[in-house]
């Protein structure tokens, strides 16, 4: 069997060896155990169900609450040449959904959003077909103790057959005891085997640097980029800033491109490609960048702001050093940045008077679009309020929104605290996710002491700016030796 594992690993995925934890998890799955697996983000979670897919006889069902993540995983499988993969999510038209449902047995990997799982016809179909494994991806969303609780996801437990059900694999990057127990209970798992990896990424070294002004911040960022090598990602808060930094830095001779959701899809793809192929050294992005970018040798991640939660921070810095080599995560901040981050996270959030206005105007027969057009509410307000007005009373909505806003503010405050107090950053990160740090690398973080020169290479001579080529040369690059 083990021999077989390595053969599939090599033939299908092109790897010689497993990453830490993967083999044990897969072994448990093949033994038909229920499994809760905790792996840090970006360390090969999806392989844990993809590989068994080629050894087990029937369909692998993956429930995934994050749409973009789902799309990315489907794309990865397709890129590997796997055709038997399909995603059921809100992007499908009813007709498409019908057609796909009818031939669902054909597919080896079926991805579903939790909402889809609750639809009767989907449920009926799934209960009648043969399934080898059920995967709950981002399983912390099932738990109300998780940082990203999704109520819809809760109901996954209701659907599961009681008798003779296939084994369940719950995957997450959070390890607090509450969350783990909750996942086990909600999914009605039978004495799940727990495979827990350390969530620490020892090769990532953390630095928090206080700056005095926006200009000072840019100078220091530029200095760091000029002195130490990429590939690297700069995370910033707005599309405008992403564009501006990219422009200013490219004028300094740095090969860089902006990336944000306001760009057309083809452009975003071009930036990913250029980054993967080292045609550019840096990407300056909003948090839209990362999903689907599988680059192993990112040496630096720079933040010019406090991200909206420790989970997001961990996710973004986690894009560095997937090859295991030393990497640097630097965050530049001023004292005021906490307020700015709070503003960005909550300024489009409905307040008490928005809730009341929405209610009154709806009663008067005003529709949501009119409210947006007249500038009374934003699209985001309307999206949130339309959803909750069907489900909660006004007072409940108001107090829930206030609670959520408080929570967002606390999460940002936590990020600020962790990065600016005197305690080891690494230790605090793993604590947030419910673990203790067992050992600390030398050059751990800016608070424990950090010598950057020992970590990342100093920057090479800047290669030339990207220059456009004559068209005939471009064409013969596309079709060489013509």
């Amino acid at each position, binding site marked *: 069997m083990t021999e077989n594992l390595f053969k599939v690993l090599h033939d299908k995925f092109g790897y010689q060896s497993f990453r830490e934890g993967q083999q044990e998890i897969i072994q448990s799955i093949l033994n038909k155990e229920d499994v809760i697996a905790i792996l840090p983000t970006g360390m090969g979670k999806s392989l844990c169900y993809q590989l068994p897919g080629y050894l087990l006889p029937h369909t692998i069902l993956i429930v995934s609450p994050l749409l973009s993540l789902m799309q990315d995983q489907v*794309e990865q499988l397709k*890129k*590997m*040449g796997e055709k038997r993969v399909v995603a059921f999510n809100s992007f499908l038209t009813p007709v498409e959904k019908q057609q796909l449902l009818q031939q669902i047995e054909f597919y080896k990997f079926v991805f579903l959003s939790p909402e889809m799982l609750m639809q009767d016809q989907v449920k009926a179909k799934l209960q009648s077909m043969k399934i080898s494994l059920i995967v709950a991806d981002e399983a912390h969303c099932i738990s109300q103790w998780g940082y990203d609780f999704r109520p819809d996801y809760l109901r996954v437990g209701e659907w599961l057959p009681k008798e003779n059900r296939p084994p369940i694999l719950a995957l997450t990057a959070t390890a607090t005891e509450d969350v783990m127990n909750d996942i086990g209970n909600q999914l009605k798992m039978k004495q799940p085997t727990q495979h827990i990896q350390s969530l620490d990424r020892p090769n990532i070294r953390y630095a928090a640097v206080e700056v005095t002004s926006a200009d000072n911040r840019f100078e220091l960022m530029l200095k760091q980029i000029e002195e130490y090598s990429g590939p690297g990602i700069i995370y910033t808060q707005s599309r405008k800033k992403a*564009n501006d930094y*990219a*422009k200013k830095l*490219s004028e300094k001779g740095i090969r860089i*491109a*902006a990336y944000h959701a306001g*760009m*057309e*899809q*083809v*452009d975003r*793809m*071009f*930036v990913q*490609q*250029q980054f993967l*192929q080292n*045609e550019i050294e840096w990407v300056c992005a909003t948090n839209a960048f990362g999903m689907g970018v599988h680059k192993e040798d990112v040496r630096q991640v720079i933040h010019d702001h406090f991200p909206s939660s420790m989970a997001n921070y961990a996710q973004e810095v986690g894009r560095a050093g997937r090859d295991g080599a030393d990497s640097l995560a630097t965050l530049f901040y001023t004292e005021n940045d906490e307020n700015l981050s709070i503003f960005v996270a909550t300024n489009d959030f409905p307040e008490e008077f928005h809730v009341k206005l929405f209610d009154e105007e709806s009663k008067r027969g005003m529709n949501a679009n009119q409210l947006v057009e007249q500038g009374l509410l934003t699209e985001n307000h309307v999206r949130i309020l339309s959803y909750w007005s069907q489900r909660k009373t006004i007072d409940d909505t108001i107090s829930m929104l206030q609670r959520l806003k408080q929570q967002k503010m606390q999460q940002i405050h936590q990020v600020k605290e962790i990065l600016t107090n005197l305690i080891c950053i690494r230790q605090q990160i793993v604590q947030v996710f419910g673990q203790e740090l067992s050992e600390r690398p030398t050059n751990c973080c800016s608070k424990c002491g950090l010598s950057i020169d020992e970590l990342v290479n100093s920057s090479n001579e800047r290669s030339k700016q*990207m*220059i*456009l*080529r004559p*068209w*005939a040369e*471009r*064409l013969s*690059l*596309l*079709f*060489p030796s*013509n």
Partner: protein
Amino acid sequence: MLFQQIILHMVKRLNGERTISAPLHLMRGKRSGQTIQDVKSYGFTKYFSLFPKLSKKTYDQSIQQMIDLGYITVNVNLIPRTTELGLSVLQNMPNLRLNGWLYRGNERIFFQRLSLVTQTLSHIHAKSMSFVPVQKDEKIQKWVRHYLKGFSYQSQEFIQSFYQELTTVFQSANLSDLHLSLLSHRLSGFEVSGVTWQQLSHALNEEEIDLHIRFTECIHIILDEISTNSNLALLFQMSEGIKTSTPLTESAKKTANLYQQGYTFEQISALRQLKTSTIEDHFVEMAMNEPSFSIQLFFPEGNSDSLIRQIGHHQTKKLRTLKEAFPDYSYFQLRLLLAAGGESNDGESV
């Protein structure tokens, strides 16, 4: 600059007879009677559907900028006029080889097909079949799959002839160096990434929006070349359904069909349960676009040709002004005359 010049060009020709929204509707390719009539009577076939997704916000910002720069004025009734300064800026406008009326934004679909076919063949050529398609639109992917299956697309001969056609079409007489830079860097393939609009804008030192105009122009030139050059068979097949076969709107097409079957104006209105004014719009559209359609029917005295000539002498397309000069004729009749006589106005002159 180019974008502003296009707006200046339209404002000048509109001659204070339309509000500032008219150019926006036109560039978005709005299918309304008014906009479609403006296309012909003011000679705006080039710019129709130039920016199908142009947002009101972006447009308003440009307009504000042009007011601030002193290129145009907009009065309280939202009527724009060019200033002396604006006219001098317009003087330097290059001649654009756009044909928006013919392609109506469909040129985008053609380029999506072209870029996905190129990416696919480039990977096959490199014997590397694993890639993420540059076009995510399922319809485009489906079309390209179907297109490629019509050939032995994995063969070197096929890839060679595709490459040959690309090389040929890149040498179309009317393409400038700028066009070729844009086109070649928006294509991507095996280990060759495309270049973003922002990067192109930095490298070429041109505004992004102007590069979009040039790019659309470039695709129009290529489509023209493909439709006339018999050596471009593969690309010709790729341009299937891109050119508008009938310039009529869907609804006007239905009215035209009924009319051809011999139904009268009143019968069509009753049959389709549409207001008279809507059917009038359809007939105006037909007068504008169908050379075989004669407006004689609506001029029992048989004097439509001379009326068209008379109207041509008036320096206005504004109906109310014309009505004062020709009080015996209805607005509908005047619109028919304008539509039928519009052609001569679509010259190159700025």
